[in-house]
């Protein structure tokens, strides 16, 4: 596992916030902005007549913003769009995936374009959602054959899924709908019934993650409709909503866009990932893992990033001390999304109550990071002891062959991982027959 150790050292994962605040992990390269403006050198000699201004703007520096790079760098900052039809099963990079010793990954399901959130029904059905497409799928096994069936279509960014007593709840862009008794009716699913729709319509961070809380309320992120802005009071929050949609309240604020949360089985506290702002730096800010200890807490956005520095535009007059600080940092632009606490019986004891976190992988960064699953192990008091790579291998030569979005523990203790780029779901299992002392 030498290679893994080296990889883990290279990962910009920062653990234990106290360590972060004393010695920040982010490596900011000092740049000489006067020496390298990033543009083509001027060829005009002093005193020569000024040439006509070109019609094309030079894609180089902006007055007052010498930090904005040249066109070649710009191309590397682009987001990678998901494949519209997914990838065929035989093109999935399963052979290249790496895991700690004793674990293995296999393709669980393919041909689910833009596979996003994962949930498991009471009868074992695996539900898979979309973000940029319009469908929700059920993965079912029949006569030993596994197939993905569309159970709802024509939905509006149906990213969020929750399951409770036979009913699948779907968080769309501007509403929450439900499919009752869905596992008994997979071949003729009912039409979704809307239970709640008090959301603004916005494309930016308009898709929603959703989960069922220990209080049987639906928790849903209501993202900030921008990269960086003062969000409207209705946004930048986690909200909880009763199962009939009749009661809703703000749970916490100061959230930019959370696409994953789960409850610590030991303490029942909510932990959530939050994606940091873009266009500040290659290395800053890092995505956050947050822990809610009290309803009504504020987690900093848009004033404070990663718990230790104020925003360049909106942070003046504010202090990070006003806000809750993250319990771990998960990498700059890494897009930490879905997360689950592990309570299964298959994996070794060190993974009990640890958090598996899918990192979708970066854009807005020339050297891509993420595109993996990491595991955060906790101390008894709920603080984070370590964050380590778990499932890697999707990122090669600065290109993603898959982009993990969500994780879901199966009843047998194996772990499903969705990939919205190639449209697949992987299953990670552990062979405990070979493990010593197990």
């Amino acid at each position, binding site marked *: 596992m030498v290679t893994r150790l080296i990889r883990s050292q290279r990962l910009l994962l920062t653990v234990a916030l106290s360590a972060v605040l004393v010695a920040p992990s982010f490596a900011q390269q000092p740049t000489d902005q006067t020496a390298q403006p990033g543009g083509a050198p001027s060829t005009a000699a002093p005193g020569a007549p000024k040439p006509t201004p070109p019609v094309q*703007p030079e*894609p180089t520096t902006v007055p007052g913003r010498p930090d904005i790079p040249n066109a070649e760098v*710009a191309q590397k900052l682009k987001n990678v*769009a998901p494949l519209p*039809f997914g990838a065929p099963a035989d093109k999935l990079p399963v052979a290249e995936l790496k895991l700690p010793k004793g674990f293995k990954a296999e393709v669980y399901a393919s041909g689910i374009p833009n596979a996003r959130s994962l949930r498991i029904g009471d009868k074992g059905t695996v539900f898979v959602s979309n973000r940029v*497409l*319009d469908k929700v799928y059920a993965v079912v096994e029949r006569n030993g054959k596994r197939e993905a069936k569309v159970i709802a279509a024509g939905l509006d960014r149906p990213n969020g899924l929750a399951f409770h007593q036979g009913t699948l709840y779907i968080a769309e862009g501007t509403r929450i709908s439900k499919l009752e008794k869905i596992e008994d009716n997979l071949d003729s699913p009912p039409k979704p019934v809307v239970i709640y729709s008090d959301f603004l319509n916005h*494309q930016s961070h308009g898709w929603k993650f959703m989960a069922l809380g220990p209080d049987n309320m639906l928790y849903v992120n209501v993202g900030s409709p921008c990269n960086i802005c003062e969000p409207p009071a209705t946004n930048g929050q986690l909200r909880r909503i009763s199962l009939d949609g009749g009661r809703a309240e703000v749970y916490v604020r100061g959230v930019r866009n959370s696409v994953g949360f789960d409850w610590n089985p030991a303490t029942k506290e909510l932990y959530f990932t939050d994606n940091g702002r873009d266009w500040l730096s290659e290395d800053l800010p890092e995505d956050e893992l947050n822990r809610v200890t009290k309803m009504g807490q504020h987690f900093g956005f848009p004033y404070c990033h990663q718990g230790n520095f104020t925003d360049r535009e909106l942070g003046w007059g504010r202090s990070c001390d006003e806000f809750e600080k993250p319990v771990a940092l998960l990498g700059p632009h890494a897009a930490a999304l879905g997360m689950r606490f592990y309570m299964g019986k298959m994996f070794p004891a060190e993974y009990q109550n640890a958090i598996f976190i899918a990192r979708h992988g970066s854009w807005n960064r020339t050297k891509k990071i993420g595109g993996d699953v990491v595991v955060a192990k906790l101390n008894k008091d709920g603080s984070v002891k370590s964050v380590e790579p778990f499932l890697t291998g999707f990122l090669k030569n600065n290109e993603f062959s898959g982009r993990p979005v969500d994780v879901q523990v199966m009843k047998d203790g194996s772990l499903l991982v969705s990939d919205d780029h190639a449209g697949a779901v992987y299953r990670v299992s552990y062979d405990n027959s070979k493990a010593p002392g197990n």
Partner: protein
Amino acid sequence: MSRPTTLALSRFCAAALLVLGAARSAAAAEPIEQRIAPCLACHGANGSSQTPLVPSLGGQPEFFLTVQLLMFRDKLRVVAPMNEMLSGLTDADLKAMAAYFSKLPPPLPPAGAVDSGRMERARAVIEQQRCNFCHGATYGGGDDDPRLAGQREDYLAKALADYKNNTRRGYDASMADVLYPIGDEQLLDLAYFLARQR
């Protein structure tokens, strides 16, 4: 067929839309040139549209076109004539159409004098919002990012406004992000500028 939409189109273009529904099922075995003839009735014989509010398709990236065709077929974008024309087509049909359109020549900017004041104003917005980062230094597009250079100005203005108002759905949300702080006048300047790039 949505009458208000077709009324805005040219007579030829509208007629092509009307016959398409009947022709589509029989057309599946025909060569691609015949199959896409009704498309080009509105989008321009050589992929350069002469129809108000209808975009030119020539030179658009194949990935972008595939995604847009998929979004029309599956009604992720609701534009009645497009939804009708593409309903029932297979993934392979969409890919073949996208490949064909992408190889048509890119549209040319309109002739005539250029308002340098508008160009400068647009340039400032572009630098601030980094349009060229994704759409390319000459706005030729690539992957999921469309070609903007030489596109119809009226169409660009409409597309920008629709993104800003959240009435047009993107394959991802970056356009809504980018346009969040941009005013309506600036959108018109952007459309003016981009239509005049080549």
